[in-house]
């Protein structure tokens, strides 16, 4: 039976189920196929902090959202066109996000009265008419999967577990996805369990056939590939791109990468990834805590490695004192903070941008540290290279401020050509740099490069440059301990001037018509939603420009000038106004903060509304 094929520009799918239902995996696979099919895409995994939260409960729901399109998109989308709800909890937790008319595929097997009560449904929503404005597809996913697998020599539990593959098969059919990649993936994953492999393939195929045969689905959709710049592409998540960026930077700098880290969500995957790449000379050390992690990284930097530490907000808090030491020692170090919901333990698996001011100021004394923030999953790669460039050029710790959304989300990435990556070669000090009055040569560890103000990086093992450094204030030049008042004032200002003087590219403004009166300024992972919302607002006639800061410290030199060009500046952030404070304080521009602290990215439509209101008020 061949069905009607409808062309769509874009689709948003959300898979939702229990933590054990394999929704992240199904989502990942759908995403990979979608990527290689050539759509532009953006994903948003959203899962609880527990390993397996209680089955059937709302807090236990694990979801994966994918937005794909035949054109350039920048967010995972606001309102799903399709929801796959593996149980009542998944339905209840997600229904409020669905627009009327959305497709809902529900696993009716789980709609038992016990499960319904568990989440507070008095009656089954499948029967009480409450879903009548949606296109509901009730399917006994579990039992159909079990049925399809009855020939296999596996337990019932194992058979039931394959229901995510059934759902994936159905969705793959519905959106005309290629299947080969999924099969390859399964073959790798279950290489050692042939029976399970066969069962999973069978479940996938059963789902596919179900779509083809059931009358419940009368149309099949197609989303054409998106036009993209020529090149070879892959799909990539932020944490992976960040890890690759660090490896690439290490190769381009010819400095062995050394990671000192302590596991913490959502940063652990960078540790996991880097630990796989010893053959690139990458060394990873799981330390006893965050303090030891950064300490070891700093020790390695001192020894001439590319020292890196990865963590999330609570870990940054613990590393503060050592970051201060790194500032005083003026050694390169990259501190990756994958921000999550705070304060304290907060919402470990959710996203937030509330560590900006911690990164700026979370240390005793005047201890400036440059900050670089990626704007999207793929951008993590470039941001990592940029962080390394700054760290090694200026001999300073650098913050790389990612977040949970960027880290776990994914998007297509044009694979860079290695030889075209920036050359990050570094020169170690190898000879004395100062001549005494009596003509003898000596080494001054704090004699600065006049241009960058960086001090020499003289690594142990270099003959003749033996010297001592430490956290006590040092005399300008010689680096000897100094309690002198004027010297301290000078050193404080020199360290600040070094950071202020870092060359960073100018802030670019996107203003298609060139006549905007309102600027929307953002940083980090809000790029996507802000971009989408500006586009929406423009479609509705609002004159609005967008600018996005990759460098939070120092700001691009033209920032003040850019801001002053507009009547109003809006700063949307997933915090209570941290960039807004910095920008207002620095440039005295009456920037309007727009804040949400919901653990989730902004919805573009909502943000577009805010922007249109501001534009209307000018």
């Amino acid at each position: 039976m061949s069905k009607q094929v409808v062309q769509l520009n874009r689709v948003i799918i959300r898979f939702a189920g229990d933590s054990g239902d394999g929704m992240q995996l199904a989502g990942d696979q759908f995403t990979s196929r979608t990527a290689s099919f050539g759509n532009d895409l953006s994903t948003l995994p959203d899962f609880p902090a527990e390993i397996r939260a209680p089955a059937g409960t709302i807090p236990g729901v694990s979801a994966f959202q994918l937005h794909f399109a035949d054109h350039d998109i920048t967010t995972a989308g606001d309102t799903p066109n399709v929801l796959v709800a593996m149980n009542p909890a998944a339905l209840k937790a997600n229904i409020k996000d669905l627009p009327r008319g959305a497709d809902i595929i529900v696993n009716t097997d789980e709609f038992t009265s016990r499960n319904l009560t568990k989440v507070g449904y008095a009656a089954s929503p499948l029967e009480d008419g409450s879903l009548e404005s949606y296109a509901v597809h009730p399917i006994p996913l579990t039992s159909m999967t079990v049925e399809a697998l009855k020939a296999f020599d596996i337990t019932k539990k194992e058979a039931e577990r394959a229901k995510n593959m059934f759902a994936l098969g159905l969705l793959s059919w519905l959106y005309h996805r290629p299947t080969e990649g999924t099969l390859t993936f399964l073959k790798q994953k279950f290489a050692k369990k042939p029976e399970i492999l066969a069962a999973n393939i069978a479940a996938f195929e059963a789902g596919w056939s179900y779509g083809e045969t059931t009358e419940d689905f009368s149309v099949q959709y197609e989303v054409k590939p998106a036009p993209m710049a020529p090149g070879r592409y892959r799909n990539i998540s932020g944490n992976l791109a960040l890890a690759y960026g660090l490896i690439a930077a290490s190769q381009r700098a010819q400095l062995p990468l050394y990671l000192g880290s302590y596991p913490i969500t959502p940063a652990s995957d960078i540790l996991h990834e880097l630990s796989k790449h010893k053959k690139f000379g990458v060394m990873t050390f799981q330390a006893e805590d965050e303090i030891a992690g950064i300490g070891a990284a700093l020790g390695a930097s001192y020894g001439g490695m590319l020292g890196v530490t990865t963590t999330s907000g609570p870990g940054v808090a613990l590393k503060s004192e050592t970051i201060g030491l790194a500032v005083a020692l003026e050694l390169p170090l990259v501190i990756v903070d994958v921000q999550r919901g705070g304060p304290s333990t907060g919402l470990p698996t959710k996203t937030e941008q509330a560590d900006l001011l911690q990164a700026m100021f979370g240390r005793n004394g005047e201890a400036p540290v440059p900050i670089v923030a990626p704007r999207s999953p793929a951008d993590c790669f470039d941001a990592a290279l940029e962080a390394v460039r700054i760290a090694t050029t200026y001999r300073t710790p650098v913050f790389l401020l990612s977040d949970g959304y960027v880290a776990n989300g994914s998007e297509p990435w044009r694979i860079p050509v290695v030889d075209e990556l920036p050359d990050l070669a570094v020169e170690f000090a190898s000879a004395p740099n100062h001549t005494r009055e009596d003509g003898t040569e000596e080494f001054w560890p704090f004699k600065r490069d006049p241009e960058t103000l960086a001090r020499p990086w003289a690594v142990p093992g270099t003959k003749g440059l033996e010297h001592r450094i430490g956290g006590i204030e040092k005399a300008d030049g010689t680096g000897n301990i100094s309690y002198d008042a004027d010297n301290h004032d000078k050193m404080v200002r020199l360290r600040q001037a070094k950071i202020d003087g870092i060359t960073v590219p100018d802030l670019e403004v996107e203003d298609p018509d060139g006549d905007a009166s309102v600027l929307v300024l953002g940083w980090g992972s809000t790029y996507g939603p802000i971009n989408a919302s500006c586009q929406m607002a423009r479609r509705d006639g609002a004159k609005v420009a967008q600018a996005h800061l990759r460098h939070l410290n120092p700001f691009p030199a033209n920032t003040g000038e850019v801001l002053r060009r507009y009547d109003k500046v809006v700063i949307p952030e997933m915090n209570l106004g941290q960039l807004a404070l910095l920008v207002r304080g620095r440039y005295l521009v009456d920037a309007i903060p727009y804040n949400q602290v919901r653990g989730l990215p902004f919805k573009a439509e909502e943000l577009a509304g805010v922007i249109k209101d501001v534009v209307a008020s000018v």
Partner: protein
Amino acid sequence: MSETVDLGFPSLKLVPKTDVKQSAKDFKTDQEVRWCPGCGDYAILAGVQSFMPELGLAKENIVWISGIGCSSRFPYYMNTYGMHSIHGRAPAIASGLAMTRPDLSVWVVTGDGDALSIGGNHLIHALRRNVNLKILLFNNRIYGLTKGQYSPTSETGKVTKSTPMGSLDHPFNPVSLAIGAEASFVARTIDSDRKHLTETLRAAALHEGTALVEIYQNCNIFNDGAWDPLKDADHRDSLTLRLEHGKPITLVDGSRGVVRGADGHLDIVDVESVGIENVLVHDAHRDDPSLAFALSRLSDSHTLANTPIGVFRDVRRAVYDETFQAQVATAKAGGTADLQSLLSGSDTWEIA
């Protein structure tokens, strides 16, 4: 100073050797030493500086890393590479350096507060990992730099600025703690006994892996005389137990010795009454740390009676930096590292 080639220092096999003859003076810096006159740290510094040439290493391949405290000023006075870091963190920083640079000889200087109070965790983890570090713990049973609060090694009941009615904490025995933390090398020596200090440094340097050397050090300003019983000529020989591998364990004056009691625990008895042949012979190389641990319990924290001095334990086990580097080497040997193909991965598509 004696010839160096003989010793070999297997722990330093990857560290470049010097080709000039060194003397203690070569290890002095031009920085004024900023300890109080009379401080035990001077003696240790002098001892270390005169021991260093024995290693026969290129000076630039030696690094001293310290935390914060009077003792932690040490690196400023050693004409090698050095870092005066932050309170308690030296073992972590030094671990990162040692792991990545097998061509360096890395030494840590720390105090009883730095190592056992704020830095306790890094210390025990360094010990269990067995990174190739030599850790010198200057134990003066007091916080010197902050002007005299009690420390984790102070005897219970100590009256200090923060404990006017006497401290309540039961002290750590650094040797017991280290052994409990899986240390492969633990020794103890005294600031004022240059010969023993040097012997102990040598043993530590020879050891492959983390070596913890507790050095009893006098703070003449805030805890003067803390170790006097072990120093003054009248008493020391009858209070100090000498640990020497393969030798019976007796007080220095030979009067009393260690024997194993009926129920298994160690007793200290008149040597004459049992006969020297029945005195326990020290075995620092036993895999089982129980004997070393039992020896660490013999001394009295207040009177210092029966304080063992010397190497408690010295065993060879996997050295962290070696296995760490070996994994990298194995991975490298296992295939070429092609960055381009890493970035590409296996699942790509082409847009023309």
